[in-house]
């Protein structure tokens, strides 16, 4: 498994312009383990603090999100992993009294810089939510919603985008003949894949997934995971999950959050086999949380 991935990495290296050694990752053990790997940093958080009013939800978060990898964020409820996810596309702007400190960059650009428009940022950093939230519209209109609000009017172009997105989300075969039907008539798992397709339709660079399978049955969960692995070829994915097996199965890197801090970050197989911190080990062994 790891070997295959490494070969893949080497193949990609030529295409990468801005590369950096994983040695720059703050947690030293990652550097030791994967010093041969070279990864492109897509998003980076530096000393991020986050407050809901007086309550500090995130403390000094430092993390790298690598290009075309799945980064999983795990930790018990209320540990701040979802809050952190939402700082990446400024979804927290919508919450009154929320305040963020430190720098969060996507492709080197600070997302909180004065010139950055939140709507424009969210076009580049898409999001899939915990509960499938299709619009009360037809399947077609759900997917076409994003391109339309960004100004695409051409019917043919919209049709092509819808087909491509549905194919990418592995939903095309199931819905191609019923695109005019309400999206609410789909099953939960199909709805969630529709939501993923809807995000892909605006061609984001990074896709944030906030427990995308936690409201689904095991079979649908399996399909979503399969889809994530597939999407990794083209997209950078940050995945928040409660499900540790899921993190172990699909992710390349894992960050462990606890009480607003990131306790440990590193390659997933390292985190799940030989974690540095006692708390990480206790959590992944199921001793708490």
């Amino acid at each position, binding site marked *: 498994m790891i070997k295959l991935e490494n070969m893949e990495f080497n193949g990609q290296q030529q295409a990468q312009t801005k590369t950096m050694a994983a040695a720059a990752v703050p947690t030293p053990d990652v550097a030791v383990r994967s010093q041969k790997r070279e990864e492109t940093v897509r998003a980076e958080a530096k000393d991020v603090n986050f407050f809901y009013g007086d309550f500090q939800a995130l403390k000094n978060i430092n993390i790298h999100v690598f290009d075309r990898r799945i980064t999983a964020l795990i930790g018990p409820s209320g540990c701040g992993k979802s809050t952190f996810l939402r700082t990446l596309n400024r979804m927290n702007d919508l919450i009154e009294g929320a305040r963020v400190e430190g720098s969060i960059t996507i492709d080197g650009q600070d997302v909180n810089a004065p010139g950055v428009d939140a709507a424009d940022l969210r076009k580049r950093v898409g999001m899939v939510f915990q509960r499938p*939230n299709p619009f009360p519209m037809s399947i077609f209109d759900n997917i076409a919603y994003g391109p339309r609000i960004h100004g695409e009017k051409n019917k043919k172009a919209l049709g092509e985008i819808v087909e491509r997105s549905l194919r990418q989300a592995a939903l095309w075969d199931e819905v191609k003949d019923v695109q005019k039907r309400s999206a609410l008539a789909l099953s939960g798992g199909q709805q969630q894949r529709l939501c993923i397709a809807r995000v892909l339709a605006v061609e984001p660079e990074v896709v944030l997934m906030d427990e995308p399978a936690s409201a689904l049955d095991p079979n649908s969960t399996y399909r979503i995971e399969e889809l994530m692995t597939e999407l990794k070829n083209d997209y950078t994915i940050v995945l928040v999950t409660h499900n540790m097996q899921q993190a172990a199965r699909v992710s390349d890197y894992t960050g462990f959050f606890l009480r607003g801090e990131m306790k440990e970050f590193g390659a997933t197989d390292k985190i799940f086999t030989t974690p540095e911190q006692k708390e990480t080990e206790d959590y992944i062994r199921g001793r708490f949380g």
Partner: protein
Amino acid sequence: MSTKTPTRPPQSNLARRKRAERVFYALCLAATFTAVLLLVLLLYGVIRDGIGRLNWEFLQSFPSRFAHRAGIKAALYGTLWVISLTGLIAVPIGVAAAIYLEEYAQKNRLNAFIQMNIANLAGVPSVVYALLGLALFVRFFGFGRSVIAGALTMSLLILPTVIIATQEALRAVPSSLREASFGLGATRWQTIRLQVLPAAFGGIMTGIILSLSRAIGETAPLITIGALTFVTFVPRGPMDSFTALPIQIFNWASRPQQAFHEVAAAAILVLLAVLLVMNSIAIFLRQRQRRRLS
């Protein structure tokens, strides 16, 4: 560890609790029947008196000093004019204000103050609005005793309820819908126009229609601003003087002749029919909404 302390078996008070249950049930049932019974009696009286006078000619005749010739054409047209204009004025302002308060406004003291005032304004008696309308629209703006003065006064009266009802409808839109839209890079206005308003449409319409229904039945504001009681023409524009159904009913009902009481009853039936139609529309829209979102 587990030394057993002898416990008394819990005393059974089931019989007593069941009796309380039955008493409460009977009380609720009696309350419901009282309300329904009163309504039925009222309707019975009105229908008995008025049904004989209700025909096409009644709708198409102007008032007359002879009861058998009197009709409600002027009042019906006046009411329709006032309500239509009231809707045109109050709905855009009320909905826009609600959107501002619910979707845009920050939580600060000023907005909390505005919110509190709107809630209080909804409880102000209509005659107070009427006096304001008299001073402002009839006298200051010089609209006189016109349809537009009446509609503006009615708009003031129903604005708070339109705003509050719309706010509630907007609040009922699941936040997941907003998040989905924002998450795709939609602006606030796009999200409101394409997702929030369509989802809240049924609720907003219900609020508007119920508010307008209230305005239809209001008499005090129109009397205060000087709507006429004996009119033998239909208004041709917003600046014409007018009368309205409740005023006409009041006028007829306060006459001594029995024949005019029957005319009043017939006019009440027409007013009730208009209200019933409006409320049915509100219910229909709410049901359709519920089906759409489920």
